[in-house]
């Protein structure tokens, strides 16, 4: 496979994943911001949303007040923000188009349809009403593409590179989401100051669509250390760091099986996977959740670089 093709597919996977994550993040933030302040209805909910997407700096450059209208506009429609939902879909579609033959027709049509819809969006959000159908569309499009790819694509390099991109991006998103709220996620036994933080924890769960999953996994009320456990170590939800690394490792092994070559990306993925497998959430808290997540994000970036290098993107 051409390196350029692999690179396009990998980045298409990443951008689609990012668009989906951003849509969920906006929804969960809206909900949090709507709460009365007595429930921790944080005025800084939108600051957190920016921080989770690592956009605090580039948003500040615009000199606009941090509120729902401005942040939602910035995260969805802003053409100058390369990670806005619109930019993500445009980039993903451009990537897909330049390697059109590597995609099955249904997979291509799913992403092209999403792009057609997005290209009808106006330059700015006119009112709040517009937002909900936009976010619905993005979530639906991500599912449609993934479903089409799963059902119709050959199990070969093209397929693996797309989902390798998704998994690397997903790991990054989950880690950032947690890191923004790390100070609210306390280890077992530490006093949690009433239930004021309850809605912060459930916002994390909602962002990764794991509110109900949480209960099925733990059969317990929402506890901060278990929220961390679910998103970091649990193999049961697809957006946990552990699940992402299992996926990354599996895909890299499949790529190696085809080419017969292993490289630094394989070593990094195996190391990351091992780190997540041979620890417990108590140990993570001992080390410091923030430190753990920061180092994870750095290592995950290194893995991304290693993949690019190894496959000559």
């Amino acid at each position, binding site marked *: 496979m051409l390196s350029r093709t692999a690179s396009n597919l990998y980045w298409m996977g990443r951008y689609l994943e990012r668009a989906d994550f951003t849509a969920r993040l906006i929804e969960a933030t809206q*909900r949090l911001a709507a*709460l*009365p302040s007595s*429930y921790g209805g944080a005025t800084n909910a939108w600051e957190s949303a920016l921080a989770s997407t690592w956009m605090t700096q580039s948003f500040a450059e615009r000199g606009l007040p941090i509120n729902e209208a401005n942040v939602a506009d910035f995260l969805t429609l802003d053409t100058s923000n390369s990670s806005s939902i619109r930019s993500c879909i445009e980039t993903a579609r451009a990537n897909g188009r330049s390697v059109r033959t590597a995609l099955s027709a249904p997979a291509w049509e799913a992403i092209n349809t999403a792009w057609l819809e997005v290209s009808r969006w106006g330059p700015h959000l006119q009112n709040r009403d517009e937002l*909900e159908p936009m976010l619905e569309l993005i979530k639906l499009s991500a599912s449609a593409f993934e479903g089409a790819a799963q059902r119709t694509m050959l199990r070969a390099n093209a397929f693996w590179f797309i989902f390798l991109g998704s998994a690397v991006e997903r790991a990054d998103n989950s880690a950032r989401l947690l890191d923004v709220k790390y100070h609210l996620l306390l280890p077992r036994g530490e006093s949690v100051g009433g239930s004021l933080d309850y809605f912060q924890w459930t916002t994390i769960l909602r962002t990764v669509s794991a509110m109900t999953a949480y209960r099925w*996994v733990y059969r*317990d009320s929402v506890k901060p250390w278990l929220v961390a456990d679910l998103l970091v170590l649990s193999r049961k939800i697809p957006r946990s760091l552990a699940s992402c690394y299992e996926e990354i490792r599996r895909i890299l092994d499949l790529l190696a099986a085809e080419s017969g070559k292993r490289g630094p990306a394989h070593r990094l993925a195996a190391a990351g996977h091992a780190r997540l497998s041979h620890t417990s959430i108590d140990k993570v808290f001992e080390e410091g959740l923030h430190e753990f997540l920061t180092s994870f994000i750095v290592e995950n970036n290194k893995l991304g670089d290693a993949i690019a290098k190894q496959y000559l993107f």
Partner: protein
Amino acid sequence: MAGGDTYDEMLGSVSAYANAAGPLFGNAETINHAYRWIREWLDHSPPEVMAARRRQAELFFRRIGITFAVYGDPDATERLIPFDIVPRILERAEWTKLEKGLVQRVNALNAFLADIYGKREILAAGILPEPLVLQNAAYCLHMAGRQPPGGIWTHIAGIDLVRTGPDQFYVLEDNARTPSGVSYMLENREVMLKLLPELFEHVKVAPVDTYPEMLLETLASVSPRGDRAPVIVLLTPGRHNSAFYEHSFLADKLGIELVEGSDLFVRDDKVFMRTTEGPEQVDVIYRRLDDEYLDPLVFNPGSMLGVPGLMAAYAAGNVTLTNAVGTGIADDKAIYSYMPEIVRFYTGEEPILQNVPTWRCREPEALGYVLDHLAELVVKEVDGSGGYGMLIGPHAPQATLAAFAAKLKAAPEKFIAQPTLALSTCPTAIDAGIAPRHVDLRPFVLSGRDGVKIVPGGLTRVAMTPGSLVVNSSQGGGTKDTWVVDDWDAE
């Protein structure tokens, strides 16, 4: 009596709607501060926008699959409950007072149930006539002398409240058995958040989505075993039950198994569920099945819905049933009429929430009054529920009144009568615009070992037919999202 003097929660009086000229409500003053944003929104939403919202809301509910069945109606096995997109609002101060009253009342209910199945002090004190309790069909002899874990009987109560004025709230029913409707409370909010996010921007509404968490804690707190995380299940009569959606919804939100009777069995007085990994012992059963179907060995022998031996396991203290068996007696409407005395007896306090004045037809004097004033009163069966089998005097034709009078004379002890209350109204979206419709409120009160907890608000039911006072979903009533409002924008 639903006439011009009816209290409207937004405008103070229903007559304000009739006098409206110009924008939707003309010069009518909004009496409740928290309603100002709602009024603003209604004033600025043209009919076609409102119509589009209503269609969108219906679509949401269809997609979620939140339906219920009406018994005896073959065409309606999956019907939507009408949802009104105009929220019903309570200010925090109003709610705080209601909350206190609800906690007091549910504490009294639990103490009452513990007492009549225990020492019977209230009967010894002569507060209630002994026959009314001990000869009551809803008094469960099997429970006499028993106490469920933590001494809690009605873990989940759905107290129906109605309002007739700014400060006049009355309890209509206590629903201490198996109250339903909480899934509507939760889904109504979800739909509103999606449908009208702009409203939530200005009005800060107390969240209700903590309910599953609180329910789970309540259920876990009454587990008979302290040595491990309890295994909790929800027992449903099955998918043909009218509230099956709610059963599956709650089981999912709580992360517990939704079981039918045949999924459970009893061995050595312990309850187990059949799983792919073999039998798993069950500690708490949140049952949405009436007492009489629970155990064919003790109650209705023909019941295929229950679990043989369940009551033996219950008696041995190896499993907790929520709500406890025998709580139905607290729903008896003749017992209800004694609630002010019951509250005073067990709490030593004056009741915060008022009872509707009630004539007990079992008392000859009361019966005489009821028969003379039948056309003004509401008459209910003491063990009725769901709005079935009741008479609303002012709305009944002469022949119905006569037939009901005959029923009353034949078995007076089966009935109680109450004045027709002028239930408050709330602005409601109808095809022709916005109109006042009568509402009630059902807050869901949870009692566990760690005390009594209530999610702010509850389920508001609304009579969709003009002038109708019947809010029951089985009789065509609808629901609204209920907002307890903490603060709002000054502008």
